[in-house]
């Protein structure tokens, strides 16, 4: 029997082929690392249930192939993702430059509300670095998203990355709930001339139940 959980969050890893998406995911789900490069076929996913503020959150993390030939199948999974990790390789300038294309891909295919995060992987390879941390940070600021440098090999900040993304999604969920429900009393007084807002803005969805 499957473990019980409170929420299911679907995450997605995208980025050029070879940047280490599969390894990052393997590190997070199995806490292991494999140096042999086996190119991902189309799509794959791993499950890990984490604990956030006493809530069990089941993460279904989709790994995608970076190659063009799988693009149709991988983009089909964008829309279902609540969070997307954009991964590049700090030792590979091209993979960093391509991030903007991946962002565009997200804009075209993912839900507008999707939570995004930028990962600069292989950060233990300091001597081969082509992309400075500052440039990563700068790009993240440009897109208004968070940024973390990780290493799947040396197990650096991989946990942190996924926990951060999951937490951001959870925070967004709670914020949405607040917006959707009745504003607190103070909010009413600001618009004293207008009667109370109808409390059914999202409750109307209950009719689907």
């Amino acid at each position, binding site marked *: 029997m499957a473990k019980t959980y409170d929420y299911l969050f679907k995450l997605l890893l995208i980025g050029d082929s070879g940047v280490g998406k599969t390894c990052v995911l393997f590190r997070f789900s199995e806490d292991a690392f494999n140096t042999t490069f086996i190119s991902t076929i189309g799509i794959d996913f791993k499950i890990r249930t984490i604990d956030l503020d006493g809530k069990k959150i089941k993460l279904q993390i989709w790994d995608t192939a970076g190659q063009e030939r799988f693009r149709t199948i991988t983009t089909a999974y964008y829309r279902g993702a609540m969070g997307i990790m954009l991964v590049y390789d700090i030792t590979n300038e091209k993979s960093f430059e391509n991030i903007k294309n991946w962002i565009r891909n997200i804009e075209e295919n993912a839900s507008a509300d999707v939570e995004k995060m930028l990962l600069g992987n292989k950060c233990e390879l300091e001597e081969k670095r082509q992309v400075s941390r500052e440039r990563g940070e700068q790009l993240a600021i440009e897109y208004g998203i968070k940024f973390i440098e990780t290493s799947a090999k040396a197990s650096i900040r991989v946990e942190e990355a996924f926990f951060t993304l999951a937490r951001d999604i959870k925070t967004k969920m709670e914020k949405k709930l607040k917006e959707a429900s009745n504003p607190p009393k103070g909010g009413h007084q600001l618009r004293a*001339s207008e009667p109370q807002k109808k409390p059914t803005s999202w409750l109307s969805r209950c009719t689907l139940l």
Partner: protein
Amino acid sequence: MVDLGSSSSSSGSPNRFVCPNDRQLALRAKLRTGWSVKTDSLSGFSSAPTVNEPLAEQEQRAIVQVIQRAEKIDVTEQERVGKLVDRLEHMRRNALGRGPNQCLLCGENFRLLGPQRIRCIDCLRWACQKCAIDTNNAKNISTASREHYLCMICAETREIWKKSGAWFFKSMPKYILPGDSKFKRNKSMRMSRKYRDEDSSSDEDRKWNRQRRNSGTESTFDITDQESCNNSMTYNFSRQQSCSDSQLSKELEPLRNYMGSMNLTSESKNWEESSSGDNKADIDSLEASRRESMASKSVTDWTWSDSRSLDEKLSPSTCSVKSSGGTSDSKQMVDTSMGIIELSLNYDQLSSILHCTVYRAKNLIPMDIGGLSDPFCKLNILPNAKVSTRLRTKTVHKTRNPEFNENLTFYDITEDDLAKKSLHVLVVDDDKYGHDYMGEVRIKLAKLRVQNTIYLTVPLENLRPEQKGPLPAPELNQWFDFDLWSRGQILLSLCYSTKKRALLVTVVRCANLLPMDNNGFSDPFVKLQLKPDPCHRKHKTSVKWKNLNPVFNEEFAFETRPTELYMQSLYITVFDKDYGKSNDYLGGLILGGSGSKGQRLKHWLDMIRYPDHRHEQWHNLTEDLLE
């Protein structure tokens, strides 16, 4: 009714738009034949190779395995959500309270020394301490702040909203209610029938289809369960709670009548056709009931099935449909005064899924005094509309040219449905005082039997100019209003009399009021007040005892001048008469002034502009307390 004759064909110009489902189609095609489609989304990558290798068989198999693994996860998730839904339904069914003097859940009476009365911030109903929670600390109530309580039903609804992912995907995902596995057998029987018909696909494809089919994504609805809830809910608690449930099995007879009255003479044949189809077979009702819980937008919904093969497109049966599809309308003048809407439809035959993409609307009618609107679209398959299969887009605020760009998916649309049914798109103004009509369009699905994807730009029609007509049935009210906690309607007549120099208000009747008393009825009367009014006049109708659809036909006069009417508002409030205690509020409405929009605003302005005429119109009552 709009004829699809003018729509562009899917094979026409691929650059004109990229249907979001194209990538799915492309994927299917790719997996079958290795053929690849260039889409706009890929153009960003300069390094994109121009020639794509087809996927090897091994690769295809690997991908299918992943998808199958994912479906197991999906089923677990659907069962989990199903349990939550079931629990909530159970709670709703067993809610006992009637009116504000009882806890809405346990029905305990509030007395002076009895349990404390707490108002739920979501539904604004009253609950006792035991049946409400404090949202601030999610613990049971202390004596601290009083503004953050939720009744258990609303608390549970919120939980489901979060836990199901509905908060993100903007609709309830598929779910499987506990104990519905017996219907799966039914489903696979139906599927196997389908496979036999399908000669064009290879064995391999068929296997995939079957695997995907049988892996249990269909969420079924237990009919026995549903019937029992109908019975128990019809007069329990309050009528409006039964909305979704009571309609699950009931056909929308009143809706059909209503539609029929809207001078759709050319359509009458269609309605008959479909109503005969209703009684046809049990399997249809099974399908219909299964459809209830299937409003979702999950990514893994697509299947490997290909679109209709070429041979079938050319088959005589579909050709005859085309010719009978009604070309008579095509020569009519196109009236775009209500604006136009752009959408595309894609039918996936093997999985019986209808994908609708609502792109945008243009030149919608203005609803507020600033000339703007807050439109959204409600989509439904008619006739035999089911509350739970209607879908909606998000609201786009303050615009007459909304960009929706949303995909909405209908499940279990059979080919029979295609032949007989229509997609109904209703554009509605999202307003805190209720939803106002902005036009509609009905699109025959028959066209989808000829081509899988159609792209449409169609004018919206105004089929309900004044909302006069017959008494709105509760079902229609639900369907039109989409409002779980509706408070009923009122029919009002306004007339400015130049002779009497007065606004004459006739309270004609009310419909679908809430039952507030223990006997399942209310004792309604209506209060009227013009604001601002130097004389502070208030009028009251008589009390209609034990009546949820009272007829008043009482006229009242407010002396005023037309120029002043532009500044004034009429406050209409409906109460339940109670002796020995304060009257219960049933619902209210404001006409005119800054608080008025849409139909209410129009009604008011018409009254001013055309004096000495009676302007009669239905309005929805809102539960907002009007001060």
